């Protein structure tokens, strides 16, 4: 809880810095403060408590995911120092909004009340609509922001409707009380409760960019500024999945059969659509968007097999995926800036021009494709084996076939970097970016070699 308060204060700091004309201070202070908050957050480990009349519940699950979210944001701010260096204004606004996205995400990790969940999701989403459209003079960015806003608010309606139906049936917003209600009345639950649960699941599927509610993702990812795309595909996706997991494991265990089919169908559609469409992509950002969709499908397997306590697998996968995706985006950001377009061709010959960047991107692609010894491989391994244990053999089969197909498009950038003659584009690197690259490279390898670092945590 304190973590959330500290982070919110950082948002206000950004705005005050604007008033005091101290814009240059913003990013260094944010990076430092986030590092401190990361440490403070860990002090809640094993000291879970409830706050605000039980509306917020801090436990190890929320502490672990909050830590991950803060870490991702920290890396994003390091990248932001370069990304916003050229743009003249608004650095304080942008930073503040990004901080508020983090606030929304933190709420989504430790809610114990459906109202709190809604507030979290809306805080995150509304900030994100703004950031998606933050390149005001670019048509694509405007389009992305507006599309996201339209569809997002449409689905928020369903979320709200689902919450209302559940309140109508159970008479409470509290997760633990809803759980007790389903426990005592499990035989005679009204159909409105079931419908409400499914509607909430629809909304969560939308937030996690799972099919058939994924339509927004490729367009919005492509149109948004690259830094925000990186944020959407890491921080936001992790937040959505953590919230999804928490919601179902705390509330819907007794109505699980009614949401199970929906999640299973969605999982199959998501991995298939994500991987198959990605095969023909030439735009790297769009490729990563579809990659994100397919990974959402794998993560759905962790949700569906949550009876086996897959928290650890979910966390491990989330860390591995975020690190790899961030690495890919931090390379992409510089290359696309230099190239002026976002095609895979822009990467041609990077292996010779900048070995560090090429190595990091290669690592990221291999990890996302699920090739050992990187974290992506063990993430998939844990999730698949959990799903197998819970009897979802065919789901795992589809997922495995799809991850084989995925290898094809993950190798496209690698082949471009090492197999193609170098192009004319001169990529300028900087210390901040190299730092992020090294951190991602080291983490992905370390997690791949020593999965126990995270797997045993939860």
């Amino acid at each position, binding site marked *: 809880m304190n973590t959330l308060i500290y982070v919110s204060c950082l948002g206000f700091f950004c705005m005050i810095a604007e008033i005091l004309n101290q814009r240059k201070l913003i990013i260094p202070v944010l990076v430092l403060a986030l590092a401190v908050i990361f440490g403070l957050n860990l002090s809640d480990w094993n000291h879970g408590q409830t706050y605000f009349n039980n509306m917020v519940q801090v436990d190890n699950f929320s502490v672990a995911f909050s830590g991950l979210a803060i870490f991702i944001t920290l890396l994003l701010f390091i990248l932001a120092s370069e990304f916003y260096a050229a743009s003249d204004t608004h650095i304080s606004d942008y930073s503040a909004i990004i901080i508020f996205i983090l606030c929304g995400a933190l709420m989504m990790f430790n809610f114990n009340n459906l109202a709190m969940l809604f507030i979290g999701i809306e805080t995150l989403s509304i900030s994100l609509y703004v950031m998606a459209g933050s390149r005001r003079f670019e048509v694509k960015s405007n389009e992305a922001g507006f599309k996201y806003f339209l569809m997002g608010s449409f689905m928020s309606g369903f979320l709200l409707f689902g919450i209302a139906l559940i309140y109508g049936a159970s008479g409470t917003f509290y997760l633990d009380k809803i759980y007790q209600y389903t426990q005592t009345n499990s035989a005679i639950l009204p159909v409105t409760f079931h419908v409400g649960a499914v509607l909430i699941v629809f909304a969560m599927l939308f937030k996690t960019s799972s099919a058939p509610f994924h339509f927004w993702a490729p367009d919005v990812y492509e149109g948004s500024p690259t830094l925000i795309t990186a944020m959407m595909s890491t921080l936001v996706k992790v937040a959505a999945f953590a919230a999804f997991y928490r919601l179902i494991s705390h509330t819907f265990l007794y109505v699980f059969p009614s949401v199970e089919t929906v999640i299973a169908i969605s999982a199959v559609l998501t991995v298939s659509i994500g991987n198959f469409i990605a095969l023909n992509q030439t735009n790297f950002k769009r490729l990563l968007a579809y990659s994100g969709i397919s990974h959402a499908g794998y993560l759905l397997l962790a949700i569906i097999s949550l009876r086996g306590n897959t928290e650890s697998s979910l966390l491990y996968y989330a860390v591995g995926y975020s690190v790899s995706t961030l690495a890919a985006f931090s390379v992409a950001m510089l290359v696309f800036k230099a190239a002026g377009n976002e095609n895979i061709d822009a990467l041609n010959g990077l292996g010779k021009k900048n070995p560090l960047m090429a190595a990091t991107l290669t690592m990221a692609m291999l990890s996302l494709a699920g090739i050992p010894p990187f974290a992506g491989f063990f993430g998939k391994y844990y999730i698949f084996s959990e799903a197998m244990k819970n009897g979802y053999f065919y789901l795992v089969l589809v997922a495995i076939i799809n991850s084989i197909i995925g290898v*094809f498009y993950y190798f496209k950038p690698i082949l471009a970097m090492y197999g193609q003659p170098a192009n004319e584009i001169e990529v300028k690197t900087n210390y901040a970016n190299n730092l992020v690259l090294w951190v991602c490279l080291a983490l992905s390898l370390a997690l791949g070699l020593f999965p126990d670092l995270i797997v045993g945590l939860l």
Partner: protein
Amino acid sequence: MTENILNEMNLIKPAMLIPLLPLLGFFITSLFGKQLKHASGWIASLAILVPFICSAYIFMNTDAATSFEVPIFDWIAFGKFSIPFAFLIDPLSILMLLVVTGIGFLIHIYSIGYMHHDEGFSRFFSYLNLFVFFMLLLVMGNNYLVMFIGWEGVGLCSYLLIGFWFKNQSYNDAAKKAFIMNRIGDLGFLLGMFFLMMMFGSLEYKTIFSKASEIPVGAGLIVITTLLLFVGAMGKSAQIPLYTWLPDAMAGPTPVSALIHAATMVTAGIYLITRSHVLFALAPFTSDIILIVGVATALFASIIGLKQNDIKKVLAYSTVSQLGFMFAALGVGAYKTAMFHVLTHAFFKALLFLGSGSVIHAMGGEQDIRKMGGLRKALPITNFTFLIGTLAISGVPLFAGFFSKDEILANVFVHSNLFFAVLVLTSIITSIYMFRVYFLTFSGEFRGTDEQKHHLHESPATITIPLIILAVLSTVGGFLGLPSVFHATHKLNAYLGNVVPSLSEHEVSHNFEYILMGSLTAIVFIIIFAVFNYFISKKNMPEANEEVMNPVGRFIYNKYYVDEFYNAVFVRPVMLLSDIFLVLIDKLIIDLFVNALAWLAISLGKGARLIQTGNTGFYVFAMVISMIVLLALQFII
């Protein structure tokens, strides 16, 4: 007792250091080779010298009763089955450690001079260090699996070093041939380990050897196991039928031939069998096979040696033949004698190879003895040391080879007269071809070009000093194992006595020993005179090409056409089969299937893209339809 344990505790650290340093040397020379330039040669040598000192230290602080283990870590452990990564220090492994690091160090020093102008200088030393590391693992392991790691590792290094000058395709082919032939042997070794696992449930020496006493002599399983282990030894130690790779392996730089293909790696097979003597003692049938293979190899290889004109090829066939001698000793159960010959052979064969390297160096790469001659004057040190090596291998009294070869002959005589006669014949042939090489190279008139004559020079000190040291060892090395007729103790037998039991019943009478030594010595001197007379006094030359040879000579010159035979019977049919699989199975069936799948996936992807229209209205419509369908699935159907 406590004193002993304390003593062993003190020796654990040096023992760990022994394999560690060459590995470290490998990393340093391979990672920083470019920066180090010629310093890498000295670093690599130091990485062998220190282990040699450690080995000597262990040797001095232990006695023949020593046997202790150095645990490194638990390597594989599941269920009841566990294999530790641990070393065994006993007289046998200490002896091998001294040979590997001692001769290894001399050859490293030699290589600094020999490889000085080579562009791959650092790479050469990194491979050499890696080789020594694996060789040390091979002899130090306390179980068969660690030995197998070393076994495979030295095979790899042998491959890398034979193909060291990889720009020459025929060298690459030689490297491949060595590797593949060794793999055939390795398969035998591997299967042998599976059988050991099955029979004893462990791969550790002490467990296996203590349980082996429960097995009856000649039991079927133990015969199969020992035969399989012997197949492994055949590959590594170049015995019939897996010997053809060793002469081709001379494509590598000469120090490699000396270290790997004469002194150390090729004796791994003898080490394997000596180490497992408990098992082989239980399988008399296998021992007979070893004896037959050993004797046959010794004879056939030495005959080929008579007709070769490449100085290194002669030495290579000589190595194969000498290895045959050692296997003959193993076959009659004279394990200690085999190890004795391993030791003396390591001295004089390394010396001969290094001497030939010095000659090749002076001749600017020329290896054909028909184009040499009279090098005595230009290369006095090389001449003198090579002569000592030749005397030692021919079995002239007082030189190292005399004692060990005499011991083998005496042991075989007790076992079988026929094999004894064959080995005596082989021994005579050995003296003939070795003196043929010596006289053609160093005596008479120079037969090379004027330019070569102009460049003739004695090699630098880094080359001559190892030669001198090895010459001394080849002279005095034999005194480690004086036969009982001289009323002296057989030091090596006493040292190895606790590891390998004695064969007391196989003692020959002293009179026979006198006759054997006397007659062999007389024969060698007659041969020296005859060969000198034939090649130098009468100035006969080996035939210029095979057309002028008689049929028998041509048959021997072409190595009995064994390579051609293997090509026709094994290589070509395998190639043909592989072509058939390539065209029919791979291209036609598998590729087609896989490509069709890929095409399907891409087309599906193209189709699926169409739903991503970019139209928000359509998106919302699709989502609503999906929701209706899903809700319907859930609640209506």
